[in-house]
């Protein structure tokens, strides 16, 4: 990771402010199921024991932040490694709220490593940056060419129901997917509302929720991307598109006016991809 200047200006995050959470998991197949083969965590990050909601080998792992949100100075580091043959759905327990900050910022750094034919479906809840917050999130994914990845992200413009939108100060989010160490797809968004209205044409238009999906699989072909694009573009009330920027990759971007509209379209996209790439339908996540 390399921090943008707008964050760096606050100086390095120290132990005195905020919390430093660490979560390291290794998932591996054992006796017909994917289990946590190795783990280390430090509050405020924590992983819950896996459940098996599809009734097969695939582990559902929920990441938990018991403090209920991210405050200034927080550093959260998650590293999840999947051994060949491991299959996992990773999600969060609830939405990630990023609170107002008097000074400095908060950062979340995620690193997922997929070996062999591992399958990772990463479907976190939405992120809500409150007015006055500054948040840096970097998610790096290293893929074996035979691995399968489906990753979604959902971002709110703020606490929209309260009429608060684009009140945050800095929001930087990057997703970097590499196959064999070569970055193939890098999505970096840096929103600074003080820099100009966010509802301008081509930026967020007049939408307040933004969802994205990134997928990779050696089984992802042009026909599937075409079907996905037709599904995304045919939805009313949201504005979305899909495409395949590189072989075996697809990306979806969608803007909407409500959380549920964007969530529904991401769910439908997940369902389509999951049936073809993982061999089973999507299911509404049962939170524990």
């Amino acid at each position: 990771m390399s921090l943008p200047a707008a964050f760096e200006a606050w100086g390095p995050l120290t132990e005195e402010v905020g919390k430093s959470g660490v979560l390291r998991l290794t998932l591996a197949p054992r006796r017909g199921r994917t289990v946590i083969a190795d783990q280390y965590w430090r509050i405020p990050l924590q992983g819950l024991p896996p459940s098996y909601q599809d009734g097969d080998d695939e582990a559902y792992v929920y990441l938990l932040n018991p403090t209920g949100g991210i405050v200034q100075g927080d550093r959260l580091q998650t590293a999840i490694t999947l051994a060949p043959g491991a299959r996992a759905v990773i999600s969060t327990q609830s939405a990630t709220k990023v609170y107002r900050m008097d000074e400095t910022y908060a950062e979340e750094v995620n690193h997922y490593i997929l070996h062999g034919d591992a399958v990772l479906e990463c479907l976190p809840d939405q992120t809500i940056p409150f007015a006055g917050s500054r948040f840096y999130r970097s998610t790096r994914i290293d893929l074996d060419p035979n691995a399968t990845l489906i990753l979604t992200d959902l971002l709110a413009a703020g606490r929209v129901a309260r009429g608060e939108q684009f009140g945050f100060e800095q929001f930087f989010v990057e997703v970097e997917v590499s196959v064999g160490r070569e970055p193939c797809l890098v999505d970096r968004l840096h929103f600074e509302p003080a820099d100009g209205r966010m509802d301008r044409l081509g930026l967020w238009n007049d939408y307040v929720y933004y969802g994205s999906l990134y997928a990779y699989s050696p089984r992802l072909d042009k026909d599937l991307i075409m079907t996905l694009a037709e599904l995304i573009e045919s939805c009313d009330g949201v504005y979305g598109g899909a495409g395949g920027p590189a072989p075996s990759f697809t990306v979806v971007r969608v803007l909407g006016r409500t959380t549920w509209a964007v969530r529904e379209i991401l769910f439908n996209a997940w369902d389509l991809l999951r049936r073809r790439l993982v061999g089973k339908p999507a299911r509404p996540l049962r939170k524990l």
Partner: protein
Amino acid sequence: MRADETLGALLQLTSGAFPTGSFAHSYGLETFVQAGLVHDVATFGEWLGVHLTHSAGPTDGAGVALVERAVTAGDWEAVLRIDRLLTALKLAPEIRAASRSTGRSALRAAREIFPGPAVESYAALLDDGQAPGNTAAVFACVAADLKIDVPVSLLAFLWSLASSLTVVATRLVPLGGIAAQRCLRELGPAIRGAAIRAESTREGELSTSAVAQDIAALRHARLYSRLCIS
């Protein structure tokens, strides 16, 4: 090179007559026009301002500055790394293809018109399959050979991009010639602002945040009828 020779070279490189094929690309603008969202000078100006500030400036603009500095320093490893990052940052397939296609055309022309060591080294890397051939990287190599200062290269690159999209808009929206040029003139501060920002953008800060424009670029592939390639 004398100042007037540098200016002459820049004018030629950024001229609409320089054969890059950029007039065939709308970068998602055509989708906005067909949806009725861009329909006059004011809405086009808003769209182009966002494109410069949140899309072209922080990726290709910043890429020109980074690559030109790397070429001047002889750091070809960095040139390749930044060039590949520029490709990875383009998520809409048509935008990825547009940058490579205009980049290749510009390189072919530059080798004839502005031959120089950087252009030749880059051409060899492209032939070798190592460099992706993004238009920003090619522009930076030509600028390095011509010894144009980075801030000037940036202004020239972004101005030429804005000018070419203005010509595309004249055809698509459509706009009157004088109204379109006045719009371009009024975007001067936005072009300068994007150039200044791009000058200090670091590799880890290259980004495209114009989400709706990116969606439009994705949707462009499936428009029923289209005049532009992207």
